[in-house]
């Protein structure tokens, strides 16, 4: 966890003072609806279908127990007892009152959190690998870089009125857990024998109305020059991004229209103008940030824990949980614990204040005070000793958080859809619930194996439907909720955009259609082949025939 210093705290406090003043002026009628809208958006406050919504940033998905307890407290005192984790490592509260908003922000500031730039046409929350600092497959912990970018992008004088919102993700692993190629800028830290440490830079990826996989415009940007390079990208985009049509204003359209090579060329030109001015400050600053990250004081342990082995042998349920939810840690004797927020029939990403408190306690006692939010709307206890796994599992069970479906059919990403969102065309949560119920039979779910189903309630694609093995998009057809099905997407290192199967379905029909598609996969799959692999081999035709007949 990065610890704020006095300067970080001041920035957040000053921002709240500013917002409090604006809120009071709005409530007393001095500020108009339009004027205030700009202000509230810059501070993460939306007006949704039923009420205001506050989106709180969780930079690079990292939380400590105090922060998670505070989120629980906010849910209890200012909201209706729960929060909703999003696909960008944020948490949303669905019922806060405007008059209490500045107080909520104070509560957040008390634990070094904020809602700055979680809305509006600005650089949004910087996301990173939720296994950062714990997984063995990374070059280094990418979070200090993400924090450097967070600070640099906070209240940026030049880039706070961009053509459209701007999302940056960072990973340091070849195994992509961040959907890095679906971001405006995707950064992959890698090490090179000769040049040292630097970043692969992808630009112009994104979902939404016109999905694109990001283009690599640079194989290697040295770590010390990364901010200068990002600045070059942002300046080019700020100047040239389209402002005539909100649907065409994202950087992906600019990159697509001018071509990635031409865009990269402009960035290089601008970069060469900035570069001579760059001193060693970023390097020093990065070093300072690294030091303000508390590295867990890992114990020296044997990798096999006899107690764990015994518990697994005695309790098949526990054994199943270990094999499904625990991943390899870089330190012997430790494990990364995945926590599903997708119990069959639950609302994806929702968690009660009580469960937040319980998880925070488990994190404090057993995970070096760290909890992570994933972009798949789940949580993680990143540093658990193998010898503690049984207790942790018990604790998670007590909190209702021990579901063993991670990465499976019922681990569905779903946006809030028409149940909460003003922009929605159709509901997505009930569809997610109904599909998850279809896979409540564990045998069947296990038989199907790895499957990523993603649902969005409108073309904005917050539910990442284009990046799903199975994607579902809600549309409004003359006042009726309809759903389009698409197949073959991936948000991982082999990023791909799912392709529509054809005619849409109604709410019941789409659940059956998913069942049909899964059935075809089971019929056709080769030994050990997952859904995506099978789809890539056999193509869409068998699925279409099963869905619509051969005619």
């Amino acid at each position, binding site marked *: 966890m990065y610890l704020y210093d006095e300067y970080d705290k001041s920035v957040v406090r000053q921002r709240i003072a500013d917002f409090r003043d604006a809120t009071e002026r*709005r*409530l007393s009628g001095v500020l108009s*609806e339009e004027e205030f809208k700009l202000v509230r958006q810059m501070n993460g406050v939306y007006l949704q*279908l*039923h*009420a205001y919504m506050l989106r709180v940033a969780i930079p690079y998905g990292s939380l400590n127990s105090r922060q998670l307890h505070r989120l629980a407290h906010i849910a209890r005192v200012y909201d209706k007892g729960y929060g909703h984790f999003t696909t960008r490592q944020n948490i949303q509260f669905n019922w806060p009152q405007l008059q209490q908003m500045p107080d909520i922000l104070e509560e957040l500031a008390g634990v070094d959190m904020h809602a700055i730039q979680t809305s509006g046409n600005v650089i949004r929350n910087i996301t990173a690998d939720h296994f950062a600092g714990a997984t063995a497959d990374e070059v280094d912990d990418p979070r200090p870089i993400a924090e450097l970018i967070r600070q640099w992008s906070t209240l940026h004088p030049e880039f706070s009125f961009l053509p459209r919102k701007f999302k940056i993700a960072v990973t340091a692993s070849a195994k992509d857990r961040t959907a890095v190629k679906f971001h405006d800028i995707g950064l992959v830290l890698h090490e090179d024998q000769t040049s040292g440490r630097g970043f692969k830079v992808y630009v112009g990826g994104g979902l939404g109305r016109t999905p694109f996989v990001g283009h690599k415009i640079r194989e290697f940007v040295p770590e010390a020059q990364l901010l200068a390079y990002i600045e070059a990208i942002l300046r080019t985009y700020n100047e040239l991004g389209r402002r005539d049509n909100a649907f065409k204003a994202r950087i992906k359209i600019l990159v697509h229209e001018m071509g990635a090579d031409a865009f990269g060329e402009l960035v290089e030109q601008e970069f060469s103008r900035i570069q001579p001015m760059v001193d060693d400050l970023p390097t020093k600053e990065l070093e300072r940030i690294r030091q303000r990250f508390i590295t867990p004081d890992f114990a020296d342990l044997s990798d096999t824990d006899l107690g764990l082995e015994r518990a697994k042998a005695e309790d098949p349920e526990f054994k199943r949980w270990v094999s499904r939810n625990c991943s390899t840690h870089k330190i012997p004797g430790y494990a990364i614990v995945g926590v599903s927020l997708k119990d069959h029939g639950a609302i994806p990403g929702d968690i009660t204040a009580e469960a937040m408190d319980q998880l925070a306690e488990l994190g404090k006692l057993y995970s070096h005070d760290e909890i992570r939010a994933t972009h798949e709307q789940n949580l993680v206890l990143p540093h658990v000793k193998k010898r503690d796994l049984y207790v942790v599992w018990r604790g998670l069970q007590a909190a209702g958080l021990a579901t063993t479906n991670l990465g499976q059919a019922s681990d569905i990403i779903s946006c809030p859809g028409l149940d*909460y969102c003003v922009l929605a065309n159709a*509901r997505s949560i009930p569809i997610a619930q109904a599909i998850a119920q279809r896979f409540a039979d564990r045998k069947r779910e296990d038989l199907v194996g790895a499957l990523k189903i993603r649902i969005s309630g409108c073309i904005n694609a917050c539910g990442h439907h284009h990046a799903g093995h199975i994607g579902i998009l809600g549309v409004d057809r003359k*006042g009726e909720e309809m759903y389009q099905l698409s197949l073959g997407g991936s948000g991982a290192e082999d990023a791909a955009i799912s392709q529509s199967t054809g005619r849409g379905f109604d709410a019941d029909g789409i659940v059956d259609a998913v069942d049909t598609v899964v059935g075809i996969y089971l019929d056709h799959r080769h030994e050990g082949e997952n859904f995506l692999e099978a789809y890539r081999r056999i193509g869409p035709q068998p699925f279409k025939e099963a869905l619509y007949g051969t005619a």
Partner: protein
Amino acid sequence: MSNLKPQPSQIVTANEIGTGAVVFMTAEGTWTFDVTAACLSETAAESEAMLALAQTSNNRSEVELVCLIAAQRLPDGRPWPVHPREVIRALGPTVRHDLGYQADIKNTSRTLTDVSL
């Protein structure tokens, strides 16, 4: 949905500024949480007049996002939104019946399950 042109058979809705809560305008020009207590227009001219009245409330910074939505008359004479989106807005999330206006009242004659969504 939002920004409808004035037409017959509409009601005015908005969000209360302080709480963000969904409200509907009554015949007296006050605001209610109960959609069935809203004033339903007979003509486009009436809709226009209602919208103008609501704007004065907006100008006093009482409500935001003032707009007309299509509504129909229930058999008992009270208004009800036409579009599913507006039904959800009026009542609360369909996946959490314990939240929103639906949770606060028991006396609305119809609930979400009664209307086909």
